[in-house]
C-alpha cells in the first residue's frame, strides 16, 4: 500500500469525511508530508471504492454543489490495520536492535589484514 492510500484510509478512522476534510486530515496525520491534490484524491477514492475499502455514506448540497461523505468499510479497516502491523513489524527490526549502528561485522576486502 502506498503512503497516500495509507493516510487516506487513516483519515477516515474516526468517522466519515468529505473530500476537502480528507485532504486536510491527511496532511495533519502525515505531518504535512502527504499533500493530496484534489485530482489525486478522487482517483484514490475511485480505486478504494472499487476495491471495497471505502464507501460513500452521505450526500448534501453546500453552496449549490454536491458534497459526498466517505467512510471506511470493514474490509478497509482490516487492510489499514494489516498495513499498520506490517510497518510496525518492519520498524521493530530496526528499533528493537540494541547493537550500535555500524557495529556489526562487515566483509573484509581482499588483501585486508585481519585484526
Amino acid at each position, binding site marked *: *500500500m502506498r503512503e497516500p*492510500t495509507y493516510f487516506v484510509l487513516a483519515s477516515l478512522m474516526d468517522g466519515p469525511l468529505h*473530500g476537502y476534510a480528507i485532504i486536510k486530515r491527511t496532511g495533519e496525520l502525515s505531518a504535512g508530508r502527504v499533500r493530496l491534490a*484534489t*485530482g489525486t484524491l478522487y482517483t484514490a477514492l475511485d480505486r*478504494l471504492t472499487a476495491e471495497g475499502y471505502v464507501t460513500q455514506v452521505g450526500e448534501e448540497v453546500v453552496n449549490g454543489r*454536491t458534497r459526498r461523505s466517505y467512510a471506511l468499510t470493514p474490509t478497509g479497516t482490516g487492510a489499514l490495520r494489516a498495513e499498520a502491523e506490517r510497518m510496525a513489524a518492519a520498524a521493530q527490526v530496526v528499533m528493537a536492535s540494541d547493537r550500535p549502528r555500524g557495529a556489526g561485522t562487515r566483509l573484509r576486502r581482499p588483501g585486508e589484514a585481519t585484526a
Partner: protein
Amino acid sequence: MSPLERRYRRLLRAYPADYRSGRGDEMLGTLLDTAAPGQRRPSARESTALIFGGIRARTAKTASQSASASLHLAAMLALATYISVDLVLMANPHLASFSTPNEWGTYAGLFVATLLIWFVRRELAALALVAALAALFSLKTGPPLLVWAVPCLAVLTALRPERLPKAWLAWFCLPVVLWLVFMLRLLNRSLFMSTGMLYLQLIWVLLGLFVLVPLIWAVTDARPAFALAILFAGFGLANVEGGSVGVTTGFRYLALSAVAALPLLVRLVWRRRRAVV
C-alpha cells in the same frame, strides 16, 4: 463564475463526460475549498493531477470492458477502415480497380447505412445485413476482399456488444482526406507537378497520421491501435502469400501490425503491475 472556477471547469474536461456528470460538481467544490484566498489560477500541481486523473478515468472506462468486447469493436473498426479506404480507391479512375458508379454506389450506400446503424440504432442492423448479403449475391464483383468485408461488418454490427464511442468517427477523416487529395489531383494536376512528388508526400503524411493518431490515442483507449494491428495483419498475411504488392511489403505490414498491437500489450502488463493508488 470566478476566473478560478472557470479554469477548473476547463481542466475537469479531461475527465469523461459521464464521470463529470456524476463527480464534476463535487470535485469542483473540493477544488474551490482548497484554493487560497484570492487565488485566480490553478496551481501546476493541481492542474497536472486533474489532467492525469482524467486520463486515468478514461483509461479505466475502456479497460473495464472484456477482451472479447474490445476485440469485437477493434475488428469492426478495422473492417470499416478497410472498406472506406477501398471505396476511395475504387472511386479513383487512375487505378485498375475503378468500378462502375452502380457498383460503387451499392457498396458505399451499404457501408454508410451500416455506419449509421453502428452509431445510431442496433435494431436496424439486421436490415443492413440482409441488404449487404443481397448485394453480395447480386453484384458478385468488386475487389475480392470488399465483397466479404461489407457483410462481415454488417454481421459484427448486428452482434455488437455496445454503442461505439462517437469520437471514433474521427477515424474516418482519413478516407475523406484521401478522397479530397485524389479529387484535387484530378482537378488541378499542375498543383502536384509533373513528378507527382507533392502528391506522394501528401499520401505519406496521411498514412503517417493514420498510424500515429491511434498510437497516441492508445494512452486512453488501445482499441483503435488494435484495430490498426488487425488491419495491417490482414494486409500483411494477404501479401506474404504473394499478393499484389509483394512479399517484402507484406512483411512490412506485419511489422506495422506488431507495432500497433504494442500499446495493448503494454496496457495489459501495466494493469497487472499497478498498485492500489
